[in-house]
Structure formats: C-alpha cells, structure tokens
C-alpha cells in the first residue's frame, strides 16, 4: 500500500517536472529570461526547446533521412550497450585494483600512510581533465601482442575513475571491525588471513556497497566523457555531441541520447543494487549511507 503510494507519487513527480517544462515551452518568452545580461531561463523557440512528447516521439522516428536508417531508439540502444560494455569492463578493472590497493593499505601501515592521502586528494581534483591527452595512445601504442585501441583508452579512464571510491571504501570497511571483535580473533589465535576472511571482509560489505555504487557512476561518467574527448565513435558520449551538432533543424533528436545516458546510469546502479541484494546478510552492522 505505502509502496504503491510511493511509486504513484514518484510518477506524479516526474510528470510534474515534464509539465513545468511543457508549460514553460508553451508560454515562456521566446528569447528566454535574462537577468543582468545573463540568460537564466532558456529560449523557447522550436529550434531551441522541444516539447517533452516531441522528444519521446523522436525516439520512434528514423535516426537519419537515409532510407534504411534504423529508428533513433535502436540507434540510442546500440550506443548505450556499447558504452555500458566499456564502462563495465573499466569498472571491473577499477574494482579489482581498488580492492587490491585497499588490502595492501590495510595490511601495511606504511602503505596506508603514504598512499591514502594521495588517493583522497585525487578524489578532490579534476583528474578526468587528462582524458583528451590519452587520445593518441590509441593510435601509437601497442604493448606486446596487445593492440592499444581508443576503446582501451576509454576503458582505462573509466577504470581510473572507478578505483578511487573502491579503494577508500574498502579500506574503511576492512578497518571497521570493533576492537572487541579483533581481540576475540587474537584470543582464538587466528592468523591474519583467517581473520581477514571471517571478520574483516564481511564487515567491510556495508562500506563497500556505497563505494561500488559510486564507482559504477564514476565509470559511466568517465566512459561518456572519455568517448567525447578521445572521439571514440559508437558510444552514447559521442552520440550526444553528434546528435546535438547535426540537429540544427531537429532539436528533439539531441535529447534521444540523453535518455540513453539516463538508461546506462540506471542500469549500472541497478546492477550494483543486485549485488547489494545478494550480500544482504552482511549488511546488518552499522554503516554509512
């Protein structure tokens, strides 16, 4: 009952947002609202701002005027799958690296002391700025028999953004057991590995899950941004830019890949949510959101 009510109200919320958009589109001033020579509300001309139903309708129409062009929806779907694929691989690499780093830091105090400040610091600075700078790696590098492609560069950027939250979250989790539990383990005469598996890893779960969620979101953002700055075609990032550029007389088209981006983000979050469900028995102890 309350659940149904929640879903209903959520739906009302989304519709209300769409309603505000369409009302503004219909009745707002054509040149937007300007305060102190800065436009604070958008233009409402047909070229600048489509109605919400036009955005949705555009999804069902062919993506280009070419005769065998697929629908915009299937083009967006393909691009989303492509982006999701790269993001997933990048995320997995990032998670593995992050977990290993956290283990290293939890085992050796010196490692934690020298690495952690940098890891924390890295989260506060826009390291994603280097994305355009690995662009030529794709053309020029090959490591052994492994061909370094642009997709590899994008994946590395995604992995790079994904590993920070995992490293920090996992470390906090591994260090979270209460002193009494650790004392209990030493009283049992249990070694580091056994107490890692029986105590530290399970108690890190509540810390790890939000970190995984954050890192999945970061991987998606990293992939989309890197696709744009490395000019990798096929994914949602490049599509966002291309559709916006080619959509001079077709403003609804530019919105199509945005639905794709929303979808990719939701699927990634949903996937981490499933992991959370699987690990539910370990989520009982106190943990941050």
């Amino acid at each position, binding site marked *: 009952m309350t659940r149904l009510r*929640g879903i209903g*109200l*959520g739906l009302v*919320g*989304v519709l*209300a*947002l769409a309603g505000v958009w369409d009302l503004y589109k219909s009745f707002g001033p054509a040149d*937007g609202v300007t305060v102190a020579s*800065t*436009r604070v509300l*958008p233009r409402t001309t047909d*070229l*600048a701002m489509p109605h919400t139903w036009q955005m949705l309708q555009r999804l069902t129409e062919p993506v280009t005027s070419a005769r065998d062009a697929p629908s915009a929806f299937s083009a967006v779907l393909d691009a989303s799958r492509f982006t999701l694929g790269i993001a997933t691989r990048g995320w997995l690499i990032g998670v593995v690296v992050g977990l290993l780093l956290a283990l290293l830091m939890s085992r050796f105090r010196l490692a934690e*002391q020298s690495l*952690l400040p*940098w890891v924390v*610091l890295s*989260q*506060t*600075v*826009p*390291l994603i*700025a*280097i*994305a*355009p*700078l690995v662009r*030529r*790696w794709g053309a*020029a*590098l090959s490591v052994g028999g492994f061909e370094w492609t642009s997709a590899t560069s994008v994946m590395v950027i995604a992995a790079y953004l994904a590993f920070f939250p995992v490293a920090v979250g996992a470390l906090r989790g591994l260090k*979270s057991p*209460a002193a*009494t539990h650790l004392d209990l383990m030493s009283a049992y005469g249990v070694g580091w590995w056994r107490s890692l598996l029986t105590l530290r890893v399970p108690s890190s779960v509540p810390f790890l899950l939000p970190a995984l969620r954050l890192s*999945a*979101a970061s991987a*998606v*953002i990293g992939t989309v*941004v890197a696709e744009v*700055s490395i000019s990798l075609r096929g994914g949602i*990032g490049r599509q*966002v*830019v291309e559709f*916006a*550029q080619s*959509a001079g007389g077709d*403003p609804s088209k*530019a*919105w199509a*890949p*945005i639905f794709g*981006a929303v979808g990719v*983000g*939701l699927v*990634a*979050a949903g996937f981490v949510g499933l992991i959370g469900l699987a690990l539910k028995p370990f989520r009982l*102890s*106190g*943990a941050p*959101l």
Partner: protein
Amino acid sequence: MTDLLTRQAARDTRARLPITHAGVTTMVAPIVFGVVVLGLWQVVVVAFDIEPYVIPAPSDIWREVTANQANVLSAMGVTGRNALIGLLAGAVVGVAAAVLSSAVRVVDQMAVPVVAALSVVPIVALAPVLYTLFGAAVNTSRILVAAVSVLIPVYLNTLRGLRQVTAVHRDLMTAYAAGPLQVVRSVTLPTATPYVFTGLRIASSLAVISALIAEYFGGPIGGLGKSITSAAASSNYPLAYAYVVGAIVLGLAFYVVTLLVELSFSRHRSS
C-alpha cells in the same frame, strides 16, 4: 553488544572530516612517496626517451606552467567562475529543496525518482542540449551543469541532516510550546549544518570537475577544458598538461576553502 553496535553506527554515520590524528610519519610518508613517484616519472621519461604524447616529463610540464602562467591563470579564472557560480546556485537550490522535502512528505516522495536518476546519470551529457537551449556562446550551460551536479549531494546530505533531530530535542521543543520557525532556527538547522557542509565539501570538487568537462562538450573558448583540448589538438602535450596542473590547483583550492569553512563551523558539534 547491541549497544556497542548502535554507538558504532552513530559514530560512523555522523558527518565527519577527513582529518585524523597527525604524526610525523603521517606527514612524511606521503611526501616521500610523492617525491619518489615524480622522480621515477622524470627518470623513466628521460631514460626511455618517451614521446610527450604518451606522457611528458614533469620538468617539461613545469616549464610550460611557468612560461604560460598568465594563460593558465586566466583559464583557471574562467572555469573557476563557472564552478563557483554553479556551486553557489546548486547549493542554495539543494538546501531549499531539502528543507521543502523534509517539511512536506509528498514532495519528498515525488522527488525520489528524479533524484535517483540525477544521481546516477552523467549530468555532463546534458551540456550539448543546454548549449542549444541557452546559446553556445555563453557560459550559462557550464554553470548549469555544475549547479545540477552540486544539487544532488547537497540535497541528499541536507535532507539526511534535517532528519537527525533527536526525539529528546523534539520533545523539548514541544514542551516549550515553540513555534515551527523557532524549532527550525534553534534545533533543526543547527543539527543539519554539519551535514550540509559535508554535502558542500563533496560538491565543491564536483563543481570544478563538471564545469571543466562541460567544456569538452562544446561552448566558448577560454576555460581550462577548452585550453587542454586545443593544446592537445596542436600536439603541444606539455602545455596541455600545464593546464591540467591548473585544473588540479583549482580543484584543490575549492576543496580547501570549503574544508576551512566547514572546520570553522564544526567546533563543539561532536557530542
């Protein structure tokens, strides 16, 4: 046992600063590590004659930073302005929305899917359509991207803070027959303040990152992002990295300033 767990939970969920006890090793170890990494980087690049498009040597990057100081600073100014306006606008809207959501339950429930979507979606993907909506020649779209990115952590943290009011404080206010505004002023807002600052601290970094990467998606030149891409396009990689250094300094500046503001507000809040 249970008591211990709840106390632990209380401690863990409390808004906290990323500053722990400092010792000599805690100061020295990361500095040593940083110097070693920089040194290795320099040595490897020189020894193996690595091309600058793979990665330039730290010395070359530093040379470009000093040679193009004025350009880097002005690019930092452009991106920093967008980030700052976005941060302030997003923070104000975020706090206001959280106050509304905590007061009116229906609004809270209506906002759930929108907030959930915004928190997992690469908001910067909105940049191109924002350029169409607001015009590609102005910075409004970048400010908006920064503001929307800021909105979510500020909203979520503030909302959480507003819900931390303890039962005993609520009872006390009822016993004093305090009016709704009095309750907000004397209990609700002070309780939420540290959480608001936690949100702001996360948001300050996000604002810079978002303002910067929004530049990769188009718009006028002048900012750090555009400078990085154009330097990379003309294969001047050390210069591009010089702008990256500018971006790092800018991000740190935002973080440190919010941290200092937070610290000055957070004395005696630990009990």
